[in-house]
């Protein structure tokens, strides 16, 4: 139960922050990516603001355990690989096309209107298809 309460609190802060920062406005996100147009630096302020508390949080994990028990996530053993790069390029292309990434796509569901639900549905479908897609690619032996 404690886990769920903290998860709800964290999600609430995440959703509120995305709303307050304007990051659910696709124009501001595409404006950040539009270096050759009317460039909008707001996203850099959001990123910077979000990284600050996390810097402190990572420091606080040292020598401690999570409040509800268990252990803190270890550093990923995997080095940077082609999955990381290929996946990030595909993600970035979709992010640029619609101006939405997963967090803001969820946070804007209540007020963004039907286009947000179409995007969200397609994103869920993409997530659901990925394991099969991965098997198909690995089966051909072409994956890294």
């Amino acid at each position, binding site marked *: 139960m404690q886990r769920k309460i*903290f998860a709800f609190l964290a999600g609430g802060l995440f959703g509120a922050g995305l709303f307050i920062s304007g990051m659910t406005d696709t124009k501001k996100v595409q404006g950040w990516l539009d270096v050759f147009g009317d460039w909008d630096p707001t996203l850099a302020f959001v990123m910077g603001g979000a990284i600050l508390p996390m810097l*402190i949080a990572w420091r606080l994990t040292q020598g401690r355990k999570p409040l509800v028990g268990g252990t803190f996530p270890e550093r990923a053993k*995997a080095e940077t690989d082609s999955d990381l790069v290929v*996946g990030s390029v595909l993600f970035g292309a979709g992010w*640029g096309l*619609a101006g939405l990434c997963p967090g803001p796509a969820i946070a804007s569901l209540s007020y963004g209107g039907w286009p947000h639900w179409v995007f969200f549905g397609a994103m869920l479908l993409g997530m659901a298809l990925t394991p099969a897609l991965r098997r198909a690619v690995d089966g051909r032996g072409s994956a890294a």
Partner: protein
Amino acid sequence: MFDSIPADWIWGLIGGLVIGTGGAVYLLANGRIMGASGILGGLVDGSGRNSAGERLAFLAGVVLLPILLNPIYRPFSTHASENLAVLISAGLLVGIGTRIANGCTSGHGVCGISRFSLRGIVATVFYILAGGLTVLLFRHILGVI
């Protein structure tokens, strides 16, 4: 002096601090990395079924708080595209890409960079580059978005 700083940047910074505080709560309390694509994707493909309750509670918070804030905050349009081909292909790309890369702007970006994770930094460089090129191509060359 603050008159010269656009309000959007200040709201961005404040909102960013709130986002990072959410990530800090999720990390310090539950010992988990706050990555939107991972939390949602684990529910969609079943890989996170052992922690489904925690994931659903997080997502409920993400959806609910904007509903509570919306009436008291300056209302704004999200300026989303109404082009079905754009919305569907973008959604598929984001869904597949974040699952293959195992993270998105929140997991690789916010949580990864703050940990000086090489994977987080590399992912962020590539999704910003790809996003920038996509906007260049589809806005300035093709004029679709």
